[in-house]
């Protein structure tokens, strides 16, 4: 009993101490224990408390981010964004939801119904289930599993399956093209993702997300400083895996209508839309756990609650995702696949070689972490810059397969246009 309790929650402080919300759940579990509740009841209640917390966070995020995303992207593109319903357009998500609910559901007769309906549900599950292993505070993690990173990697590739189900069952050519592109793209970007996270596992020696956060706390060093190259590779690959705008060839509206969700309407389309936002937040949470220290922030986490720091970091990373979406144009599919195989995969292999050599030197020399880690930070940042520069400058092939300049006319003397008289300077015109 006590062992189980200590696994679930460690009651360190008073239950009203919001720095660690596990105190509240610990108090609830204590009450059940005092009343003579059996061990399985305590287990179920503790699991339900954590689950409900995560589900309510996800639900809130899915509703709020519809507004956040449209508003921020609108601002970046010199538009206003939704601003009519409620203050600052805050009620827009609710109006969207009501409208999607009321829409007539159209489903092509030639589409097999079960797979067609299951696809949006399948698309939503991984983003939510991924959050189970991420720590929200020192004692706040729903499932503290030792193979957390494998769990995350396994779930994150399930999204491709759902997209393929949607595209294949729609019986629509555009949808099939979209899902084919998704499979080719996700399959290519899976490898840089796996290889870049390997560097973190090498450094920390654990696959437990909580363990990785504790490593960063113990050695007082953020993983993004220790492994900037892995961070860059992971960020690029994951934004391709999310199907967001620099890499949204799967649903490219101007090429293949809507890609895999061409045939979806009503709430099923709404689920695709919401799941995209949920996945973006889940990936931001993974990045902020593994690279940005999660709930830990130097001395700040002693004053501010860890879960607030964590949410702040999630939204910081999410903002960068929205930023890339708002500013970058779409890649072609051959550019994207070449980027995965010819740039990111060799870079990730170089990163692994570098990191494993560093860890060996650290272990064999017996130097203290206080000396070694700052040196590694400097070396790795410099190496990341050098490797990226080398790839851009020398190694990688040029992306332009088609000439951007006029080649055939370059030898012909083009008569220059006659000079146009400069317009009168307006400031000097006196009225």
């Amino acid at each position, binding site marked *: 009993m006590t062992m189980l309790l200590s696994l679930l929650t460690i009651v360190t402080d008073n239950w009203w101490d919001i720095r660690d919300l596990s105190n509240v759940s610990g108090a609830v579990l204590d009450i059940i224990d005092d009343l003579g509740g059996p061990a399985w009841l305590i287990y179920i209640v503790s699991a*339900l408390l954590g689950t409900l917390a995560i589900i309510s966070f996800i639900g809130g995020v899915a509703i709020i981010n519809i507004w956040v995303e449209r508003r921020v992207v609108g601002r970046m593109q010199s538009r206003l964004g939704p601003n009519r319903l409620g203050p600052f357009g805050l009620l827009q998500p609710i109006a969207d939801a009501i409208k*999607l609910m009321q829409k007539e559901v159209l489903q092509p007769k*030639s589409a097999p119904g079960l797979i067609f309906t299951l696809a949006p549900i399948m698309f*939503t599950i991984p983003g939510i*289930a991924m959050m189970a292993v991420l720590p929200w505070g020192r004692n706040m993690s729903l499932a503290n599993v030792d193979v957390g990173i494998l769990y995350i990697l396994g779930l994150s590739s399930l999204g491709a399956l759902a997209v393929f189900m949607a595209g294949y069952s729609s019986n629509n050519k555009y949808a099939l093209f979209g899902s084919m592109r998704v499979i080719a793209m996700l399959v290519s970007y899976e490898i840089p993702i796996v290889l870049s996270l390997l560097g973190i*596992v090498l450094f920390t*020696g654990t696959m437990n997300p909580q363990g990785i956060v504790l490593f960063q706390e113990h050695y007082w060093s953020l993983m993004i400083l220790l492994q900037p190259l892995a961070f860059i590779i992971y960020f690029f690959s994951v934004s391709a895996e999310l199907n967001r705008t620099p890499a949204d060839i799967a649903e490219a509206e101007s090429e293949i209508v809507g890609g895999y969700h061409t045939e979806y309407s009503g709430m099923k389309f709404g689920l695709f839309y919401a799941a995209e936002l949920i996945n973006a937040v889940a990936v931001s949470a993974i990045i902020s756990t593994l690279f940005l220290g999660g709930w830990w922030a130097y001395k700040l986490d002693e004053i501010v609650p860890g879960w607030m720091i964590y949410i702040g970091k999630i939204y910081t990373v999410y903002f960068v995702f929205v930023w890339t979406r708002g500013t970058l144009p779409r890649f072609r599919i051959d550019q994207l696949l070449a980027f995965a195989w010819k740039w990111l995969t060799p870079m990730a*292999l170089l990163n692994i070689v570098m990191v494993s050599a560093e860890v060996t030197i650290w272990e064999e020399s017996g130097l203290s972490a206080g000396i070694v880690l700052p040196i590694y930070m400097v070396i790795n940042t410099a190496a990341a810059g050098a490797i990226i520069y080398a790839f851009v400058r020398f190694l990688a092939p040029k992306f332009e397969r088609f000439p951007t300049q006029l080649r055939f006319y370059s030898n012909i003397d083009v008569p220059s246009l006659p000079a146009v008289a400069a317009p009168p300077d307006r400031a000097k015109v006196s009225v």
Partner: protein
Amino acid sequence: MIEQFGRGGFLLVFAVIFPLIPILASVALGIFKIRPSAPDPIKESVYECGMVPIGDAHVRYNVRYYLFGLLFVVFDVEAVFLYPWAVAYRHLGVYAFVEAMIFIGILAIGLAYAWRKRALEWI
């Protein structure tokens, strides 16, 4: 450890329920006639730029997708194989370093071979 996975399983169950709620709500609205439903043969056909669709969508597709799938299987299996090595790496010493470098070298040669054979080109 199995207790911890069980707690993840709770979230998995709720993750299935979460998307089911709006879908069931939408179905319920259809039953109570709040949501319109006027089926029509044109509405129920697939979208193809407003034309009557020609043929089935499940046509032959290019072999290039297959090539990338094949490459993926090779690389991903080997990449996942590196994870246990990475977890135990600190206790294994220089020997593990040399061995893994040979392994990664073979992986890199494979990538270079695929690159040279133009398997990475999107034809």
